[in-house]
Every structure is written in structure tokens, then in C-alpha cells.
């Protein structure tokens, strides 16, 4: 980045910033940030692996807290008790020039070692436990592969073969069976990334040329936030993903839906609905807009379930057909797979066969709704700095979309449940 390019940016944005800062202050901060109940909390956890890690953390926390209190009080006392209270005090005859006391030293060293042993024991236990699926549960474990690309995740289900195209593949949303251990093979496909779903398990890096893995288990069905946790270039911050844990029945239903080819929308006449208008056609779409809606935030898991169901009432079959044609003519299919609809695509780009059934797009950055979809395909560069759809696709293939194209593509993509 160039210094000269920074200065105007600063000047331009300074005012917005001040306004924003003031606003946030005024709206009143609720100072409960220390409860740490966020979507990516490592404290309010939902799985045995994260729990084991949390327990170790709490041990370290208590041990050091106790030491801190003891050492701190002695230090505070010494500072208070022995401070010179007056000028005269400072000039007084120097105190006894003592040089130390080996017994005290040894005692304290012993105490420190003891404290460390208290930490070390659970640490060692947890290292073994969190490393891999416990032997007794091995048979029950579900296997998936997670592959990281700049800046999105690909998930493979080796246990779900699909005739003709290998195995079930999805992007950015990992669906797992709840209550079962899941063994995830981690692969970095370009640079180093890291797989982190704080509520379920600590992170493990996805390093090129290295066969890493982790295991986790979700205690109950739920919707979990994940994030790439190793700096991997421009859009590292927005390389996110989700994990959805489902009960056995739901999981099987989901698998059935996913393993089938992309959904065909019955050819019916236009419902005559007015075409959606998207503010997102313009590139000056406000970038500091949240990627999610309040409704979604209210109950993400329900939102995910809702996404699984087709919504024929609001679908415009003609528009969808137009979108499908555009997907081909605008060369989207050269990168993206839509299994059953057209032949094309490559494994190195997100599989869109069931993109409509996901709650998020663009690496977990945006909620998957019409407006955000439009925003993404109109200006991927603005939404996600440097992303490879933009640099490899839009520029190289020179894809230009009119607002109408976008509406059609959005309709098509949303129909891919």
C-alpha cells in the first residue's frame, strides 16, 4: 500500500468515522462484553472438545489468578509499607544492605513448580483427548474433508458418493450430524488457513502439503459460526464459514436433498410479480453495512431450516430460466458446478448446486438473500477485496452484468435449493 494513497482516504473517511464513533457512544454501549456470549465464544461452548479446552483454560486461569492475588498483595503491601513518606525519609540513612535469602528463593521456586504441575496435568490429558476421536467412538465417527482456498472453504463428504462426480461437495457451510464425533481432514490449497469453530473446537491450521485433521462433536443440533484463523492475504478477515449440526433424521434428509442434482423449477407462466430492484447494482453500495439482517440474527438456525425449503410462491419460473441461460452465457459455469444443470466448473471454485439452501454466500460473509446475492454478483470486488471470482472471473472473462441480468441470476441461484 502506498502512503500517498492513504492520505486522501483518511481525509475522506475521517468525518464518517467521527460520526460513527459518536453515534455508537450515544446509542449507549451495554457494558456486558465481559460475559463473552458471542457466536464465537470460547467460553459458552457446545461440544466436548471445546469443553475440554475450556476446562484447561479455566485451570490456568484460576491458578494464575491465585498467584496473581498473592504476589500482587505482597507487592502492593511492600510498595505501600516501605515507601518514603517525606523528603527526610528519602535522605535518611540507607536501610540495611541485605543481599537475599536462598531459603525463600528455593521455597518460591518449589511453589511455582507445584503450580505448574497443577496446570500441566489437565493440559497433558486434554492434549491426548482433543487430538483425535477417542478409540471407543471411532466407529461412530463421521468423516469430512475441509479444503481452504483464498478466501472460502470447500467441504467434501467422502461418505456420500455421487454417481458420476465422486462425492458430495459443498461450500462455506458444513453440515454435520449432532451428537456424533466428526473427523475433519484439513487441507490448505494455496496458502495457510485455519479451521476454527470456537464453540465446537479450537483451531487447527490448514497447511499446504500437510495432512492435518481435527475432531469435534456438537452436543445438540445448532448453528455455529466459524472463521479462518490464520492470516491468508487480503480477505482473511472475511473468510468465514458456518457449521450446522443436525439430528440424525434431519441430517439424512439433508444428505438426500444434497446428493440429488440441482433443483429444476417447473416451467410455469410468469407469476407477474414485480421484479426486485437492488440497490446493489451500484458499486458505491455502502460497504459498512452489516452482512446480515436483524431477522436472521434473531434465529439463525430457523433461518437455515427455512432456506432448505423451496418457495414456489415467490418464484418466477421465467426469470429463473433466464438466469439459468445467463449462468451459461456469462461463463459462470466455467468455474461453478451446478450439478445436473450444466456441464462445467472445476473443484477449485464453490459448488453452487444447492447454493439456495445455504444461509450465507461469499465465504460466510453475507446472508444469502436476494439483496446480498445481487450485491455479491454485481460487485464482488467491493464486497470482498481481491477475491478470486473477481480477479480471475470478472476481469479475465470480462463479465458485464446489467441490472436485469443480475435479477435473473439471483432468481436462478435462489432457486437452487
Amino acid at each position: 500500500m502506498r502512503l500517498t494513497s492513504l492520505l486522501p482516504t483518511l481525509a475522506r473517511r475521517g468525518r464518517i468515522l467521527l460520526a460513527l464513533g459518536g453515534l455508537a457512544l450515544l446509542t449507549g454501549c451495554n457494558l456486558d462484553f465481559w460475559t463473552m456470549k458471542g457466536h464465537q465464544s470460547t467460553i459458552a461452548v457446545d461440544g466436548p472438545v471445546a469443553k475440554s479446552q475450556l476446562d484447561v483454560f479455566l485451570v490456568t486461569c484460576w491458578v494464575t489468578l491465585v498467584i496473581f492475588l498473592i504476589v500482587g498483595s505482597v507487592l502492593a503491601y511492600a510498595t505501600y509499607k516501605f515507601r518514603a513518606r517525606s523528603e527526610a525519609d528519602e535522605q535518611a540513612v540507607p536501610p540495611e544492605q541485605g543481599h537475599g535469602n536462598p531459603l525463600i528463593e528455593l521455597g518460591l521456586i518449589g511453589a511455582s513448580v507445584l503450580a505448574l504441575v497443577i496446570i500441566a496435568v489437565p493440559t497433558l490429558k486434554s492434549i491426548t483427548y482433543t487430538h483425535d476421536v477417542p478409540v471407543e467412538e471411532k466407529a461412530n465417527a463421521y468423516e469430512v474433508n475441509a479444503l481452504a482456498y483464498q478466501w472460502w472453504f470447500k467441504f467434501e463428504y467422502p461418505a456420500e458418493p455421487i454417481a458420476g462426480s465422486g462425492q458430495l461437495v459443498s461450500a462455506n457451510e458444513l453440515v454435520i450430524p449432532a451428537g456424533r464425533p466428526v473427523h475433519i481432514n484439513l487441507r490448505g490449497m494455496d496458502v495457510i488457513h485455519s479451521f476454527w469453530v470456537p464453540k465446537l473446537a479450537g483451531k487447527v491450521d490448514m497447511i499446504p502439503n500437510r495432512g492435518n485433521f481435527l475432531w469435534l462433536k456438537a452436543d445438540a443440533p445448532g448453528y455455529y459460526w466459524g472463521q479462518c484463523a490464520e492470516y491468508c492475504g487480503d480477505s482473511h478477515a472475511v473468510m468465514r464459514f458456518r457449521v450446522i449440526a443436525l439430528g440424525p433424521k434431519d441430517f439424512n434428509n439433508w444428505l438426500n436433498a444434497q446428493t440429488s442434482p440441482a433443483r429444476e423449477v417447473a416451467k410455469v407462466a410468469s407469476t407477474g410479480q414485480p421484479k426486485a430492484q437492488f440497490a446493489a447494482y451500484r458499486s458505491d453500495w455502502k460497504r459498512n453495512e452489516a452482512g446480515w439482517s436483524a431477522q436472521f440474527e434473531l434465529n439463525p438456525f430457523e433461518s437455515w431450516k427455512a432456506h432448505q425449503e423451496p418457495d414456489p410462491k415467490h418464484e418466477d419460473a421465467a426469470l429463473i430460466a433466464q438466469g439459468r441461460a445467463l449462468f451459461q452465457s456469462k461463463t459462470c459455469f466455467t468455474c461453478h458446478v451446478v450439478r445436473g444443470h450444466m456441464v462445467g466448473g472445476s473443484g477449485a471454485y464453490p459448488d453452487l448446486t444447492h447454493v439456495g439452501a445455504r444461509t450465507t454466500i461469499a465465504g460466510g460473509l453475507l446472508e444469502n438473500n436476494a439483496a446480498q446475492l445481487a450485491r455479491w454478483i454485481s460487485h464482488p470486488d467491493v464486497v470482498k477485496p481481491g477475491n478470486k471470482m473477481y480477479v480471475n472471473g470478472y476481469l479475465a472473462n470480462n463479465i458485464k452484468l446489467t441490472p436485469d441480468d443480475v435479477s435473473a441470476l439471483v432468481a436462478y441461484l435462489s432457486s437452487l435449493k
Partner: protein
Amino acid sequence: MEATAKSHFTGKEEHAPAKPSFAFWRPTAKTGLMSWLTTVDHKKIGFLYGSFALFFFLVGGCEALLIRLQLIVPNNTLLTAPQYNTMFTMHGTTMIFLAVMPLGAAFFNFIMPLQIGARDVAFPRLNAFSLWTFVAGAIILNVGWFLPDGAPDAGWFGYAPLTSKLYNPTHATDFWILGLQLLGVASIAAALNFIVTIINLRAPGMTMMRLPVFTWMTLITSFLIILSFPAITIALVEVMFDRQFGTNFFEVSNGGMPILWQHLFWIFGHPEVYILILPAMGIVSEILPTFARKPLFGYPIVVFSGASIGFLGFTVWSHHMFTTGMGTVATAAFSLATMTIAVPTGVKIFNWIGTLWGGHLKMRTPMMFALGFIWMFMIGGFSGVMHSAAPADAQQQDSYFVVAHFHYVLIGGSIFALLGGIHYWFPLMFGRRVSEFWGKLSFWVIFIGFNVTFFPMHFLGLNGMPRRTFTYDGNMGWNVGNMIATIGALILGTGIAIYFAVIIYTYLKGEKAGRDTWDARTLEWSVPTNPPPEYNFAVIPTVHARDAFWYEKHHQSEIEQEKAAQHQAEAAHGGIHMPFQSIYPLVASIGALIGAFGAIYHNLIVALIGGSLLFIGIYLWSLEGAEGYHLHPDEDGHDDAPAPKH
């Protein structure tokens, strides 16, 4: 090779000055630009190191402020993603390599020779070379701000393969590689010099176990530098070859393993963090006894624990890699090894408290910083211990919890101690002292601002906020913590601004300080004038005890006689020998700078010019010899001594 010391031990006599042809032109300016560029005086070099370091501290601080301003609210757009990534990369690199390390080097240079009763370091011209090579490295590292390619943006530990040509095609990463390479050369050269100085140039009677603790920590830090920097040198050579010549060290398609970079980097990187903290611990170990008016509690144990921290520092590097899937055995081993470091570190804390116990604590500004150091470093150390438990770290690694940890040890630790050290030695360095009121005020503002900034980051990290993210969404529960942290950073910035204002004011107009302002204990305060004369000691002191100066003050008559005798002996032998200034270290460093540019831009001719300049500089520097002139001050540094009057 430095020729200065040649005659030092052989007693060899040079022949009457022959030549001088133009190559051996000896600069003699005592004032003005040339005197600074060609100086070989450890105090001037220390001052320059310190000035550069403080400048870069402000630069790094401004970068930090931009980081914090970007994060003040979710989805902020003050900086773009590439700008932000550049910002934290340069912030980390600048703070570590261009602020804290050289600030440490400034004290090593200025204080250490005085503490051991020496008149300079063992190789004064090598010292100048270190300084100018450091400057060259700093230039290369920062030059990207002014060029189209931009400044480095691969993070301060530049994990391969993000640094490869494929993912980072511009020269930005080359600036980072070559910049660090030059800084490494500078650091190793300086460290070798300090090692020889401390081992070999101690005043009579200054046994190793009488060395001031700061000098001890200088020695240990220097060892850490010479033993850890080679690892990053090799690692940097490997990425450089990958980028420039298409080798395969980290090239996955030909079987390269990017994980190797992480190992090599952290073999350097972990000792590096102790390179940053040990000088700080040394400074604190000087300040506390002075203001408690008591010797350091358990001196031998403090020294020994410093050495064990240094040694253990080489056995724990993989604790930065707990999440790289090393397998249970390696993870457990590094986890335990890391925990053991808490023991020697704890010993230091206990001994500092022991030093306070029963003392007469004079609560002056340096003392405030030292006490602040103990508190803050303790907190930082405890979060370090939390990291060392590998399973816990799996959640903390690369989250703001780590950011909190290392700022507590780096700012609460290193920076607090260094800022305290500046206050402490200011009267010695400049003959003026900082106003207590303003000094304490700046301390409190910094202290509060620091905690407001970084304490919430623990919560942010545990709440899952990843580091190195230019933006975050508003629904994650991170808004308030970030807002507080940013406000804290502004307070902290204000505190630092006050601190600098006070320092600059004092330098220009501050209250004059007498000799031995604080009633201190170590030899640096025994110099005849503040600031010290260029020859440091009119008479090389003879050391009778640890805390040598304290002993002198309490055995005055005895010492006086000894000094007189010593002075006579020295005078009889021709007075104090001072080495000439020299231009060649600067020439060599400029050669290195030019050569680095040639390497970055693949320009063979420029590289060759740079290389030859480097070679010629070194060659002429070894040919010209140290030479020098003589001074004849009296015992107190008066009379015929050209002592700088203030």
C-alpha cells in the same frame, strides 16, 4: 575485521605515522553532521540508536492508532483491507525491529561500557557499522510507503507460502526480506561487539559476579541475538531464493513444506521476544535497587534466572505452532517446556519484590515505571502461561487474546521499562532531569490508557475475535470491547505524546541535574561530568564490590588514594588514548544498502556497485587501523580535559 583492539593486548607500537594518502582520510570534526556520521564514540552511537528507535516508535504508534481507529466500529471503512494488512504488518515489524530492539541497543551502547568501567566498546568502528546498517535496514523496510509496490503486508512473521511470488508478486515482500536481512547483520555485529566488550573490557576488579544486572542482561541478550538470528537469516535466504531464483523451499508443487518456514522463523522468533524483554528486566533491576536504596535481592539468582530464561528460550519455539498439528508428543513436550520458563521469570519477580522489602522507596518517575512494569509484566506473563497450555491455546492462538498477551509483555513489559530507563538515565545522558510532576502524569496516562486498550482484548479474544482482521460484523459481541480498546489507544497515545513533549522540553530547557542525581549504585554514575566526557572515566575505576559506585561513595578516602595512584600511572603512560573517527563503517553500510536495492530489483550492476562499496569500505577500514590521539584530563576530568560543558 576491526583493527582497533590489535595493539590493545599486544602492546604493539605503530611506526611513526606514515602516509596519509587520501584513502586514509580521518575525519576529525567534533561537531556538525560529519561528527555524527563518522563517530565511533559509544555514547554518540547510543544516542543515535535511541533517536532512531524513538522516531520509529512514533511511526509504529501511528500505525497502531490507524489500526485501532479502523476497528472502532464494526464494518468500518477507514482503511481498505490491503491498507489494514500493510498497517499491522508494518506496525509489528517496526515496533519489534525498529523500536524496541534498537532502543535496547541504545542503552547497551550508552550505559553498558560505563557500567563496566570501560572507555568504549571493544570494536568502536564495528559499532558504527552496526548502527548504519541498522539505518539501512530501516530504510529498506519502510521504503515501500513511497513506492508503487507498497510496504510489506504479509504479517510480521511472514508465513510461507503467502510470501511467495505467486501470492505476493510485488516487491513489497522483497523489502521485508532484505530489510530484515540487513537488520540481522546489524544486530549480530552489535551483539558480537557487546559480548567481547563485556567479557574483555571490564575494569580491574569487575568480576563477572560483580557486573551490574543490566550488563548481565546485555550479555545474555547478545548471546540470544547471535544464536537466534542465524535461523531467520537462513529462512529469509530461502524465501528470497524462492522468490528470486525459483527454488522450491516452500514451493508445494515440487514437494516444499511451508511448515518449515514456521519452524525456522520461531526458532528465531521466540528467543527474539526474550531479546525484547531481558534488557527491560535489566533496566528494572537497576532502577529498583537505586530507588529502594538497597542492593538487588538475590543477585546471583537473578543473573542465573536471566541466563536460564535465555537458554530455555531456545527450547520452546513450537508453542507458536500448537495449532499446526504437530502430534501429541511434540505438542506436550513444547507445552511443558514453555511452562518451565515461568519459574525463572517468577524468580525475578520475587527478587524484585524482595528488593523493595525493607527499603526506603523513593517514588520517583523511573520507579513508577519500574513498578508498573512488574504489575503489567506479571499479567502478560500469566496470559503467556495460559497460552502454554496447548489445548487452551488452540482457542487462543491467532485471536485477540494473543494480541492482549504480547502487548502486555511488550508494552507493559519492554516499553514501560525502556521509558523508565530513559527517565532514569536522562540526567546522566544530558545533564538535565525530567520534572517529577510531568513525568508522573505521563506515567499515569500511559498506564491507564494501556490497560483500557489491552485489557478488553482478553475478552475479545476469548469471545472469538480473530486477529489481523480489517473488519468484523456487528453481531458477534465485539463492538463494545473494540470501542473501549480504541478509546484506550487514544488515551495511551495522549500519554505518549505527553511523555515525548516532556522529554523534549527537558532536553532543551529542563532543570540541571547534578552528578549522581539519584544516589545510584553503579559505575556509570561515577563519571566526572553529566553528560559523560568522551573518554568516560578520567581514571579507570578499580572495583571492590558489586554496586561499585555505592561502595566508592561509602569508602571515599580509600578510593581517593587509589584513584590518585591510578591517575599518575596512566598519565605517566601518555594519557588517555582515544580512537580516531572513521568514515568507512558508513561507506560499508551504504554499500550494503545499495546492494540490497540491487538484489530487490534484480539489477546486477547496482548490486555489484553496492557489493564493491561494501567490500572497499571494509577493506579500507581494516587497513586504516584504529590509530588515535591522547587526552590528559586530571582525576576529576577538569583542567586540560576538553570536557563538554553544559
